[in-house]
């Protein structure tokens, strides 16, 4: 470990850091703008100036940029040097000459890196008396507002958007003091990660447009550590609310999962919480129905917490419990679990994906299904040729030098998917084939095909330092099996399997029947009552099957927070608290158990789902942690969930709870004064180690799983996360949150090859038959986020895409209507004829009301 000298004091730093990182790693303060822990340095803003000395005898030194100075052994700098301090103040003063008088109306205010750095540099008064330069703004879509006057030309946005996120429709334009960061013309930003600009930009140029509708300052937000509910990756989030209403979501750093960033679905999906179900408390009806029931079946849900699912399983018994997955998903999830446990391949975390150099994507669309995986693969491709730069002695953090040295070199990415996925724009090669052929292709690679693409890929995989195979539950059991064989056949090869929903793996681990079997139990008359937990069955079975279920069941008790087809068909609705009003655990795609905590107490006494289930049965659980404890005792593989985050009796080092509200939360004696003069006591939270009020510890908690926000004196923006990390940009103090539940036991994967190969129906070869494939879209396919106002604007029109060849064969024309017959139902959608889908398939959007019933690749007849 190199030792550096900062203001005369020796500090140890990790190898390969720069001096700005060295300073921050050691908990010292040094202002900066253009450097970002995930993006490295470019030396553009000149704010991190320090005095750099040659050696001990050098008293003169020179002003240098800390972020561009390698932290070698013996590097000697001074932060406090008067000239360096004055230099930094001047830099801010210059940047401020054009900065508008906007703070009061700027949404960045109160969590603004520019405000923090300006204060830190001691620049408090504007001396410049001349006119300010101004810009016009652009419309960038429903997610971000653009206010270019506030720009300080740090280049972070364009580096994030182009270099990291791979976007192309955003750039820097103009010359001299007219440079402009935006699009060529107004329009919706194309990148799925555009929302991160609001966090990456150190000023208020980009701010969250959804939160502007009901703006609240950071100091007034009630925040809690949470996990994204909108896909199976389990990105860590910080949702914020005010007056018991959700206001915005920001990323919560987790070095093993999402790092600093989030996708736009995760960031803006929260608006679903405005559209919740309200209905009479019908718990008595439900209890009576259960008493009279002749057999009860319970259907759980991959978007409900582990606790709620387990509670339901206890209530109805394992043999009458369904995980709430469609048959296709259930089979694939079971296959994945067996592959995982077998240890054939190494299961990677999302952060580890970024280290791969050769990636093979099999049968899934990461951008639509698990967007941050798309981001991680882009990082992997960007970093893969890093060796080239290292050979030239260019440190990894020297971002521009690395880009020049790499000269466009990228890692190798191969894709086989039924339609042309967005990642194909950076792929080395890609093929578009039917789902069954994806598996065939994977086997070709692992069995060493003699020529063609498959053989090329197998050579590249063998050469790779960190090969990786990516697939997903939505690709089906057979593809997962084939992918695991492929990964297993290459030494050191990693495997990454996505899960469609936040808790898919959790419910799959709990086990149980598929929905189909549960429905059969009802239809065969063995049971007449159904309890559905936060699950819209209409999305998971064909419409006739759903209709017949509704007809055959005597009592259908539905617990949900949103209105769905299932709640509409229910005989009894029990409204439950939304995700933001309840606590629980999710198990993400790599079996990482992560706890999320309620941001707000339940509204109007609508309780969490688990407590509804407790009241339906004969249970004594006082809190959700009792359920978790019981689960862990009952099923040892869930023991890790107990370690994932602290329980209600945990206290900080100061023996206090963690405060969800900041120490400067305002309006306590006024916000309820329109209703009551009594100033109600803040709601108590007996369930968690967090308090709903400002009363509690405001310091960074010792357990990283209960960090409610990043804040540090002088660091109001999220850059305060510096102070929560062992090494800036790496692990949090106390380790990254979450515990992996599954480990490889070394057993063979239980592959029933015959079963696996029938998991895809085969078109009979008859001319009117075609594969019907649901395609996940980032906006629109996920059940909750599609209810959001902003996301709702970006849902693509429901269309059926088909290859010209197939279209011709079936007599379909672009712009016409396709009537597709499958599983006894018919859907009709406008046709889009395009080359980007595989021959022999027709691709329709997944989870759209128009395509309910299309739950998995199936065979349809074109009418």
């Amino acid at each position, binding site marked *: 470990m190199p030792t550096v000298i900062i203001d005369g004091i020796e500090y140890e730093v990790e190898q390969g850091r720069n001096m700005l990182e060295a300073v921050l790693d050691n908990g010292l303060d040094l202002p900066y703008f253009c450097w970002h822990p995930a993006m490295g340095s470019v030396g553009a803003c000149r704010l991190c100036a320090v005095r750099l000395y040659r050696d001990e005898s050098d008293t003169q030194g020179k002003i240098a940029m800390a972020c561009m100075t390698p932290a070698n052994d013996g590097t000697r700098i001074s932060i406090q040097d008067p000239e360096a301090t004055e230099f930094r103040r001047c830099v801010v003063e210059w940047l401020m000459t054009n900065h508008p008088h906007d703070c009061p109306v700027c949404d960045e205010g109160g969590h603004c890196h520019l405000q923090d750095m300006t204060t830190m540099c001691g620049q408090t008064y504007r001396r410049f008396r001349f006119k300010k330069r101004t810009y*016009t703004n652009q419309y960038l879509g429903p997610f971000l507002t653009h206010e270019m006057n506030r720009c300080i030309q740090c280049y972070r946005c364009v580096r994030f958007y182009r270099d990291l996120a791979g976007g192309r429709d955003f750039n820097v334009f103009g010359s001299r003091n007219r440079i402009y960061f935006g699009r060529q013309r107004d329009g919706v930003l194309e990148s799925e990660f555009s929302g991160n600009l609001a966090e990456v930009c150190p000023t208020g140029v980009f701010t969250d447009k959804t939160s502007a509708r009901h703006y609240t300052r950071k100091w007034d937000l009630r925040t809690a550590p949470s996990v994204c509910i909108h896909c199976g990756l389990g990105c860590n989030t910080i949702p914020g609310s005010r007056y018991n209403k959700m206001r915005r979501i920001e990323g919560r750093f987790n070095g093993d999962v999402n790092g600093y960033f989030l996708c736009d679905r995760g960031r803006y999906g929260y608006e679903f919480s405005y559209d919740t179900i309200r209905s009479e408390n019908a718990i008595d009806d439900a209890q009576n129905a259960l008493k009279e029931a002749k057999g009860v079946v319970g259907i759980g849900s991959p978007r409900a917490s582990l606790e709620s699912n387990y509670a339901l399983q206890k209530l109805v018994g394992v043999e009458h419990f369904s995980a709430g997955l469609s048959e296709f998903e259930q089979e694939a999830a079971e296959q994945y679990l067996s592959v995982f446990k077998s240890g054939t391949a190494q299961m990677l975390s999302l952060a580890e994906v970024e280290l791969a150099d050769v990636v093979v994507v099999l049968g899934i669309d990461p951008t639509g299904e698990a967007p941050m995986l798309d981001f991680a693969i882009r990082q992997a491709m960007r970093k893969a040729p890093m060796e080239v730069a290292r050979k030239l002695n260019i440190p990894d953090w020297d971002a521009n030098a690395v880009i020049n040295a790499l000269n466009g070199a990228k890692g190798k990415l191969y894709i086989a998917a039924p339609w042309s996925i967005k990642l194909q724009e950076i792929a080395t090669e890609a093929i578009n084939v039917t789902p069954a052929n994806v598996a065939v292709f994977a086997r070709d690679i692992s069995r060493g095909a003699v020529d063609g693409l498959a053989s090329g890929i197998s050579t590249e995989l063998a050469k790779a330092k960190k090969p990786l195979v990516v697939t997903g539950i939505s690709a089906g059991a057979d593809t997962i099996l084939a992918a695991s064989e492929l990964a297993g056949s290459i030494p050191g090869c990693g495997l990454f399997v996505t899960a469609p929903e936040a808790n898919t793996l959790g419910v799959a681990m709990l086990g149980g029947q598929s929905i189909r079997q549960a429905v059969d139990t009802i239809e065969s008359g063995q049971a007449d009552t159904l309890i559905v937990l936060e699950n819209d069955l209409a999305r998971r079975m064909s419409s006739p099957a759903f209709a017949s279920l509704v007809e055959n069941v005597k009592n259908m008790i539905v617990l949900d927070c949103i209105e769905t087809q299932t709640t509409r068909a229910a005989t009894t609705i029990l409204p439950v608290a939304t995700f933001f009003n309840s606590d629980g655990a999710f198990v993400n795609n790599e079996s990482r158990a992560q706890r999320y905590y309620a941001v707000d107490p339940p509204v109007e006494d609508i309780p969490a789902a688990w407590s509804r289930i407790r009241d339906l049965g004969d249970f004594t659980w006082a809190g959700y942690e009792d359920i978790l404890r019981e689960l862990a005792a009952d099923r040892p593989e869930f023991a890790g969930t107990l370690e994932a985050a602290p329980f209600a009796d945990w206290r900080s080092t100061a023996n206090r709870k963690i405060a969800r509200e900041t120490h400067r939360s305002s309006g306590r004696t*006024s916000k309820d004064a329109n209703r009551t003069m009594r100033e109600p006591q803040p709601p108590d939270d007996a369930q968690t180690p967090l308090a709903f009020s400002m009363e509690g510890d405001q310091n960074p908690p010792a357990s990283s799983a209960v960090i409610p926000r990043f804040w540090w004196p002088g660091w109001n923006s999220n850059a305060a996360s510096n102070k929560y990390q062992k090494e800036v940009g790496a692990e949090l103090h106390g380790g990254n949150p979450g515990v992996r539940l599954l480990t490889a036991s070394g057993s063979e994967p239980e592959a029933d090859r015959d079963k696996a190969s029938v998991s895809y129906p085969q078109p009979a070869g008859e001319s009117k038959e075609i594969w019907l494939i649901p395609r996940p879209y980032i906006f629109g396919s996920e059940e909750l986020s599609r209810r959001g106002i902003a996301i709702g604007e970006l849902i693509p029109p429901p269309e059926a895409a088909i290859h010209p060849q197939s279209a011709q064969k079936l007599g379909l024309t672009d712009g016409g209507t396709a009537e597709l017959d499958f599983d006894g139902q018919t859907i009709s959608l406008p046709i889009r004829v395009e080359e980007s889908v595989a021959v022999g398939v027709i691709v329709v959007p997944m989870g759209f009301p128009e395509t309910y019933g299309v739950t998995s690749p199936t065979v349809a007849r074109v009418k």
Partner: protein
Amino acid sequence: MVSILRSMWLMLKHLVVRPVTVRYPEQKAYIPPRWRGRIILSRDPDGCERCVACYLCSAACPADCISLQATEDEHGRRYAEWFRINFSRCIFCGFCEEACPTYAIQLTPDFEMGEYDRSKLVYEKEDLLISGQGKYPGYNFYHHSGVSVKGKPRGGAVDETHPVDIRSLLP
């Protein structure tokens, strides 16, 4: 003896000096304009609400008795959707006025706010908003800020140039 004489003297003196007591409420006392009494929300010279809902007053308030919610009109002008001061909690310290970047919130010389019912001391925006500019005439925040609002286009503020032409390549 001396002290008795002094007391007598003081007492007799008061027979001839003018009393300081005023016959309140018939007669009003002089209250200096900077007296910290009932709080109002003022309007800018154009008659629009001055408050831009920045939340600084509510953050500054030591009694935590201000709460509000920001919203925007269709031209992007920020204002308070609602604004509430609980005067039963206010200590009339004037911090809110000092924190306010727009001169919107001002304390006035009116102190006659007594009520029998505490809930009547909760003032909403309608109760707080006056039609004038109060103590600080002439200031309009939006004429200094860079954001555009109705009647003030981009680059239209005091000390601002016209928006630059980013497509120009002139040196």
